[in-house]
């Protein structure tokens, strides 16, 4: 199928929309309107050639030059003749304004990199969340990283023994800001059925953003928790957890540092 250049000249100034319906197709379709195909066109007219509006190309060239000069930042589709209310409406239809913070947190919230890290039976459900049924990749969270340096979300999937707690804290400290943590399942939130000498709740040694209850939570549950976190990141773009939790001055002091 041949690509047709879309001529832009000869259009009434007030049209304002991108010209899907061009002069050439209009003339080829002989007033039928609607979607035109190559075969319909060739059947209708039988000429087979492509009509090029040379004045349209000149307008394109002119717009590109204007764009390069910086006189027109709205792109080559904006007719040079536009002004006033018309131009205002044109801008409103095409340009989205936001703060940089919001744009960045929108990006962050749609591409968590979870740490590939499982502690106990909850990890099985965590794997299932990445599996085809829940498909965490729909939201852009499928890249489980093997290194805390590349991750920004840690999911504590399972029970945290007091022997494991300092290791997890080390992992969390190694993750780069901004970072978030999900406590998955009863064990690492409230210690569940293992509320005894062996375990420690995750809140005792690191800040947790979302607790997902369940024993273990189903993949739907974890998904719900992750989407809650996504909402939190979108609405509260405060980057560092220390600011979020008022925890300045709690940095780990390494021996010999």
């Amino acid at each position, binding site marked *: 199928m041949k690509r047709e250049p879309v001529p832009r000249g000869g259009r009434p100034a007030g049209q304002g929309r991108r010209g899907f319906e061009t002069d050439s197709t209009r003339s080829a379709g002989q007033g039928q309107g609607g979607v035109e195909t190559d075969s319909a066109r060739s059947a209708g007219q039988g000429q087979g050639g492509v009509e090029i509006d040379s004045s349209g190309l000149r307008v394109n060239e002119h717009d590109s030059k204007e764009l390069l000069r910086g006189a027109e930042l709205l792109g080559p589709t904006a007719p040079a003749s536009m002004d006033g209310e018309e131009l205002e409406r044109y801008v409103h239809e095409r340009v989205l304004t936001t703060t940089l913070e919001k744009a960045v947190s929108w990006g962050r919230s749609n591409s968590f990199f979870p740490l590939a890290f499982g502690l106990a039976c909850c990890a099985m459900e965590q794997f299932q969340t990445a599996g085809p049924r829940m498909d965490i990749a729909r939201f852009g969270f499928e890249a489980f990283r093997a290194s805390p340096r590349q991750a920004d979300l840690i999911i504590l999937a399972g029970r945290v023994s*007091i022997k494991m707690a300092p290791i997890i804290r080390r992992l969390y400290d190694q993750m780069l800001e901004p970072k978030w943590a999900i406590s998955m399942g009863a064990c690492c939130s409230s*210690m569940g059925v293992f509320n*005894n*000498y*062996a*375990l420690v*709740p995750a809140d005792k040694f690191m800040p947790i953003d979302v607790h997902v209850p369940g024993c273990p939570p189903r993949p739907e549950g974890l998904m719900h928790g992750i989407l809650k976190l996504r909402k939190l990141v979108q609405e509260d773009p405060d980057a560092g957890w220390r600011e979020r939790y008022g925890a300045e001055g709690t940095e780990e002091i390494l021996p010999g540092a």
Partner: protein
Amino acid sequence: MPDATGLELLAKELRASEGVGEDAILGTLYFRSRATLEVRPTSIRKVLACLRERGYKSMMSVHGVDYYPHEPRLGVHYELLDMSEVDRVTVTVRVATETPELDSVTPDGDDGKGWPTADHQEREVYDMFGVAFRGHPDMRRILMPEDYEGHPQRRDFPVGGEPVIFTYSEGDSHGARR
């Protein structure tokens, strides 16, 4: 599994055998088709060596028990298996909490070959019940952190855990904001 009669015969054989001694076997217990020999703590290596000669060549498990409030409180169970006869026997020793010491069966010695599988399991018994095994090649904790205090599986050890504040119990907690 030796039946009740077989267990008595085994105990008699052990008492008669060289190096074990008449008073090494403190008693026998046949309960729910499981045969148990209770052995004096100082003779454990000898008795296990003799049982190995009689075909109980595999040590399947070493585990600790706290018999609180009975004295002596702590017990260590050795589960032996005869693979060719498919026959099991349990050997038990009891030690007091005041002197929780026992000969390790892990290393080889003058009184017979050792049982390498007992290595980690004796460490676990030490970790959880505080029975120190003399002659063990690496007597450290295995499950709890190195700096942990106490032996958590003893019956007089507090269960531990944390009081968890749930939404419904938030007001009762001493740390709650009112």
